[in-house]
């Protein structure tokens, strides 16, 4: 099939075309450009929810229960579940679906597992593009699961409208975990596995910390106790997502947030391209080698070397 034919089927709502198009983007095939141009004009309708938190905290289970609940309000839901690729074999074992069995036969639910393939930000490389594709396909809600981040991978919050951070009693070391970057990106905090010992303590610690950190903020992130396996607390989670959505809308923040993300992406891509162009220049490469020697022989300082290189930049086409 040609890309035109795939896109036509995609427009008709054909799941297999959707799936094939995701594969093309995920693998960076030549046709990607044409597809992204098509997709880019059709995004912006879906509401995007991100779920992050330590591995094994119950993210996939929560997503299954949440999606099931959301089905009573929304017909079309897309789920992207990221899992790590092995740094040794480059293979991956994608197991998030094990917890999502109850969704497999739901019409309107589309689940795609993605391996990180070396990406280090807790998401797969093309997660954003795949979310855009699901959006253009007509999914009303898109839920994205990270690989189960530790502390620094906060990229997810730039990709979604509402970020949910999941903790569990055994995420351990109480406060230490809470102090890490994750407490700064959450719009909603969940203490899952609240059937386990220590959940109450974590809940109050988290609540205190959030109240302090968000004193001057208009949005006060709620903290919720859940038991995903027992379908407990999911109603409240859904309610808080809707609250956060309303907050964003009422304060005109949704568009602002999304525009910020566009700016970020543009800056990132622009900078990457510039670097690529610079390093492709023979003149820059040559001068760089010369500067290395001069600095090494202590003829000039690093700063002077940089100045020399910058002067060369204007000759780069």
């Amino acid at each position, binding site marked *: 099939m040609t890309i035109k034919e795939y896109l036509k089927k995609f427009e008709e709502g054909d*799941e297999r075309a959707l*799936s094939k198009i995701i594969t093309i983007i995920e693998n960076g095939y030549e046709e990607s450009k044409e597809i992204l141009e098509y997709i880019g004009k059709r995004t912006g309708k879906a509401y995007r929810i991100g779920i992050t938190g330590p591995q094994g905290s119950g993210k996939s289970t929560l997503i299954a229960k949440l999606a099931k609940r959301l089905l009573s309000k929304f017909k079309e839901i897309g789920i992207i579940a990221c899992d790590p690729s092995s740094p040794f074999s480059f*293979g991956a074992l*994608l197991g998030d679906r094990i917890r999502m*069995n109850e969704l*497999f036969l739901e019409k309107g639910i589309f689940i795609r597992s993605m391996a990180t393939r070396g990406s280090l930000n807790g998401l797969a490389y093309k997660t954003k593009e795949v979310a855009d594709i699901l959006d253009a396909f007509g999914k009303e809600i898109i839920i994205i699961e990270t690989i189960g981040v530790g502390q620094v991978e906060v990229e997810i919050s730039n990709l979604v409208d509402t970020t949910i951070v999941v903790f569990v009693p055994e995420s351990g070391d109480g406060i230490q975990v809470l102090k890490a970057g994750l407490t700064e990106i959450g719009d909603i905090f969940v203490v899952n596995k609240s059937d386990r010992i220590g959940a109450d303590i974590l809940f109050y610690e988290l609540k205190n910390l959030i109240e302090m950190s968000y004193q001057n903020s208009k949005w006060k992130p709620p903290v919720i106790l859940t038991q995903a396996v027992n379908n407990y607390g999911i109603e409240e989670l859904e309610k808080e997502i809707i609250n956060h959505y309303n907050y964003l809308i009422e304060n005109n923040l949704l568009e602002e947030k999304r525009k910020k993300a566009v700016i970020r992406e543009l800056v990132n891509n622009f900078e990457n391209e510039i670097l690529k162009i610079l390093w492709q220049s023979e003149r820059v490469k040559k001068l760089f080698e010369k500067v290395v020697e001069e600095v090494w022989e202590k003829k000039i300082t690093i700063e002077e070397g940089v100045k020399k290189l910058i002067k060369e930049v204007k000759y780069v086409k």
Partner: protein
Amino acid sequence: MEKKKIKILIAKPGLDGHDRGAKVVARGLRDAGFEVIYTGLHQTPEMIVNTAIQEDVDIIGLSILSGAHMTIFPEVLRLLKEKGATDIHLFGGGIIPDEDKEKLYQMGVGKLFDPGTKISEIVEYINNLFKEKVSE
């Protein structure tokens, strides 16, 4: 440009709990560099085919030790055909008597592996499959 990654769905249909083989194979194929999706126990043919389509896998591998192979394999084949997804290769392993294997091969099922199979044999089979596919 990135090379095509081979994606494999390892599915464990049926009501029994014999998932050791499926897990061993899933992990082994991951370690051999494939992207493997494992969906857990009790998968119906509909669940398997839906998953295969959404994940756009190249191969489905079924693990069946319960004796239900003569109903499950044909049903998965039928659903693949119904959904126009016959390009997805179907194979598997478990406890499957030789005479049943023959019948399943006739229907178009790929190789069926016995207990005691080494992962390297499975990897070799998949790699050969793809050599053929690419050169077609």
